[in-house]
């Protein structure tokens, strides 16, 4: 603390204490972060913004991207189930999961390309590899995953059609690489499910960025329960045991990760997760996930209950993805979610004596 003549201009003590209180409280301070206000009786001022216009821009992404988040997760989990089925001798589970993985990853890739401003340039995604860009890393993960998922699914299709695909001598090659391809896809499954969380976290979009610590856990859990749900729909209960287990694990992970995430996030940046359309979707997502998980746990050996639970789980995962997606877009459109958390963290750093890292300086 300096001892200058200007100390007389320093805010009165109550105002200073309020600043520290604000740090512990829910962070709803309205005192401009500079402690200059001394009249606590006056209703605290709304935060300032430039005519209420957003500070950051929302990603120009439509529902296609949310669909991709969902389908990518389904594909990733399915590849894991497929590899598991392959290794533990569950041919039906393996077949259905492989087909599911290819269909989901194919649909997801189409949605992604459709969302580009210049879809015809989608291959530009692979003209370089950039670790600083989760989108670049993800494009390579998606490509590697698709190769394995594609080969193993084509092998299944060939088998189902009684070896009628016009493959010629390539059939032997296909049958030889089918197993390794399934494993390769499973290796890239986890990264495929998790990178989308980094993609959202590594943005200036307030809600996504504030969620970056826990979002990967939410997304892999959601991928597990969605793919398990799909397998429970497509596969007879006899072979679907692992899918039921995965469903239960996924639901537990999803619910816990979501709760931890909401608790650890900046409270203001977390608000869009509870409001409006996004809030409703996330609430229903949790309900459906719990219902589907209970169904899998208690009635999963009944074909009808299994299929119904599976559908509930798929819907739950889709709602999670759409909910998180929408909450982020909403947070970018409202300047409050950019300005208030930033002002609060700046004030908190200043209160802790860190004054050298602000973008606004007096000299």
């Amino acid at each position: 603390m300096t001892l200058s003549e200007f100390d007389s201009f320093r805010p009165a003590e109550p105002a200073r204490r309020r600043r520290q209180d604000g740090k512990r409280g829910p962070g709803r301070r309205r005192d401009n972060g500079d402690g200059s206000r001394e009249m606590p009786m006056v209703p605290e001022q709304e935060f300032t913004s430039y005519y209420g216009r957003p500070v950051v821009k929302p990603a120009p992404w439509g529902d296609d991207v949310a669909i991709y988040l969902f389908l990518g997760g389904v594909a990733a989990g399915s590849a894991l189930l497929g590899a598991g089925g392959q290794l533990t001798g569950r041919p039906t589970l393996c077949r259905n999961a492989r087909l599911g993985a290819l269909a989901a990853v194919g649909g997801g890739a189409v949605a992604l390309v459709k969302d580009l401003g210049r879809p015809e340039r989608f291959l530009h995604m692979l003209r370089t590899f950039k670790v600083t860009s989760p989108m670049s890393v993800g494009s390579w993960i998606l490509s590697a995953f698709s190769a394995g998922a594609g080969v193993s699914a084509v092998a299944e299709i060939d088998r189902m059609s009684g070896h009628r695909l016009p493959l010629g001598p390539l059939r032997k090659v296909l049958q030889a690489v089918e197993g390794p391809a399934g494993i390769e896809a499973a290796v890239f499954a986890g990264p495929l499910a998790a990178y989308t969380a980094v993609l959202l976290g590594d943005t200036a979009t307030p809600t996504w960025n504030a969620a970056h610590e826990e979002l990967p856990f939410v997304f892999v859990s959601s991928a597990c329960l969605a793919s398990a749900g799909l397998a429970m729909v497509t596969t007879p209960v006899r072979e679907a045991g692992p899918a039921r287990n995965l469903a239960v694990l996924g639901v537990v992970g999803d619910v816990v990760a979501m709760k931890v995430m909401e608790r650890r996030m900046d409270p203001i940046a977390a608000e869009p997760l509870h409001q409006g359309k996004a809030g409703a979707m996330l609430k229903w997502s949790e309900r459906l996930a719990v219902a589907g998980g209970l169904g899998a746990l208690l009635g999963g050996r009944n074909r009808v209950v299994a299929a119904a639970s599976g559908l509930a789980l798929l819907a739950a995962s889709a709602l999670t993805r759409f909910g998180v997606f929408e909450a982020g877009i909403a947070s970018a459109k409202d300047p409050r979610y950019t300005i208030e958390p930033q002002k609060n963290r700046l004030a908190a750093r200043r209160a802790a004596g860190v004054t050298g890292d602000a973008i606004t300086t007096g000299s």
Partner: protein
Amino acid sequence: MGQLSGPTDPTADARWEHSHPRKGFFTDTSICIGCKACEVACKEWNHNPQDGDLELLGSSYDNTGELGASTWRHVAFIEQGQERIIEARESGRALVNLGMPRIGPPTQSAPAPTNLAEADTTPPDTADFRWLMSSDVCKHCTHAGCLDVCPTGALFRTEFGTVVVQDDVCNGCGTCVAGCPFGVIERRSNGTVKVATSREEQHANHPEVPNVGIAQKCTLCYDRLVADETPACAKACPTTSIKFGDHDDMVETARERVSALHAQGLTEARLYGANENDGVGGTGSVFLLLDEPEVYGLPPDPRVPTADLPRMYRRAGMAVAGMAAAAALAFLGGRA
């Protein structure tokens, strides 16, 4: 790849093997008259199409709105009464009194912040009304969120330390739009240009919008810089509110200017982006503001998201391990 945060020379990080000085702006909003010559010059030089529907936005003399794909300079207008001016003065004074450490070696020209003590700022020197005008532009950040997250390499760091999109490489994925902490870069859509039928013929043949679907922003007039020319906006500015030059000189000029204003008692003056220890490693475009940044629509504490990327990748790695373990458990565990 250079470092992800903190002070650095972005040109060297991008592996340019030469010694071009980093270029930048110093936008001194205290002498901006809000003429918008910069906006016009930028549009003209870069052939940027009309943005929006020419409506009145009800925000003082600002009917441009915000920076965007087709608006690379934006002049903000803010009307303030005396109460707000006094607040701005106090918040500026608090900034100085915080004892911000100077960045870099101290200079002789800039008086010590304590000189402020001699300033007489008691009313009636405080006006009862003022207009703030500020020409906003891409910050050409030291650690540019847009550039970091671009998957195609369309965004690149030029030899002048600026950040530019290559129109022929960008595939419009839009990642950069979400990656910019200042809301500058935007993907250009073709839906915004509607030409009123009542207008004259030359307007009816509105030229086709170029670069639809591609992310667009200020290039710091890369095409002019390579020809050793001043950027169009700086050249057009009649008051020298927009100054262009070597980044180091710009920061120095900004520091001198803010101390000069402080010495006149204008404690509301403060710099934005001149601190290389801030969340984006300092900006290439430095501003002198007369109120808190959010008043102008600027983020108060921007942080390049990529600074946390290593941590995000670690968390994702843990999640991947968890997912693999869950799958293994599902197959090996009981009940099945």
